[in-house]
């Protein structure tokens, strides 16, 4: 679908993620590879912040900070531009693997300027995921209602047909009730 031009470089820092439920498209595979399942243990595995800041080496040296944070802002924007929709999918895949993305605060390595950008980025990601959840909620509910409506319409038709058939069958069953009628020889 969308040619993953920007992210071809990242594949050498692939982290294997746990099993996905269905066969992913190419782009989803790339995103899945970038997700983080083993954050908690070693610092050698690249963190999301690392990826976003454009550096693909293990723990970035403190000197690189101010330079990379600018790139990070641009990167995120370009990701957002065309692939906002894809991020939605990836956002769910992110939460597939491990409960709660654990983002280590990088405050020790990035002085104040970088920290603010980090927090903004984190906030943006969280907000995106939250928005995606909200859309999914809405869609799920409307689709459920549509399914129900379809079923009810079907059932309704079936019942109407049965009712019509039954009426047809019943018209022959009951003869017209004979009613009492007075005649001239009545005693009263």
């Amino acid at each position, binding site marked *: 679908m969308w040619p993953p031009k920007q992210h071809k470089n990242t594949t050498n820092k692939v982290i294997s993620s746990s099993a996905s*439920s269905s066969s992913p498209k190419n782009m989803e595979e790339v995103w899945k590879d970038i997700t983080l399942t083993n954050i908690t243990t070693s610092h050698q595995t690249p963190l999301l912040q690392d990826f976003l800041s454009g550096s693909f080496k293990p723990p970035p040296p403190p000197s690189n900070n101010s330079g990379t944070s600018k790139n990070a802002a641009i990167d995120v924007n370009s990701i957002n531009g065309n692939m906002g929709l894809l991020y939605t999918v990836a956002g769910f895949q992110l939460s597939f693997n491990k*409960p709660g993305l654990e983002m280590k605060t990088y405050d020790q390595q990035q002085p104040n300027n970088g920290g603010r950008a980090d927090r903004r980025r984190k906030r943006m990601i969280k907000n995106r995921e*939250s928005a995606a*959840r909200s859309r999914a*909620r*809405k869609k*799920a509910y409307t*689709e*459920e209602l549509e399914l129900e409506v379809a079923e009810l319409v079907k059932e309704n038709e079936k019942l109407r047909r049965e009712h019509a058939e039954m009426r047809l069958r019943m018209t022959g069953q009951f003869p017209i009730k004979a009613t009492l009628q007075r005649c001239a020889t009545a005693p009263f």
Partner: protein
Amino acid sequence: MSVDPLTRGRVVGDVVDPFTKLVSLRVFHNNRLVVNGTELRPSAIASRPRVDVGGDDFREFYTLVMVDPDAPTPTNPTLREYLHWLVTDIPASTSANFGRELICYENPRPISGIHRMVFVLFRQLGRDTVYGPDMRQNFNTREFATQYNLGYPVAAVYFNCQRDSGTGGRRFRPENY
């Protein structure tokens, strides 16, 4: 994309694997049938729902699990899944109150965010073959099913829950019309 609401709401994915519905599962809160994706507030679900299980053979037993995969908050569900209710040995074609309540019903009280509350129904291999966990938090429905040979779910339903004073989600309520 599939049209199944359980998949759309990521219940299939976060809590269970894709499955085929085999048995009817009807959950009633205040005599109202719970429909996938509907919203219920904690005050409406303070007491156990009535759960009617389908099937036709009394010799088949079912386990009902009720979990919150978004505990304590959907943005950071560190307690996923939180087990609210566990009932086992429910005979087919009866309801949950005929079963054995291993983990008693705990009224969901989400503090932040909109949580999914998921009911999953499993068919047991036999009676008295399923046991409860020690803790409610960090329950794993998939592992639980593997551990007690429950296989794939036979039915599932979910609804959304946020705190009573919450203002998230839809901006209008159909009941108000």
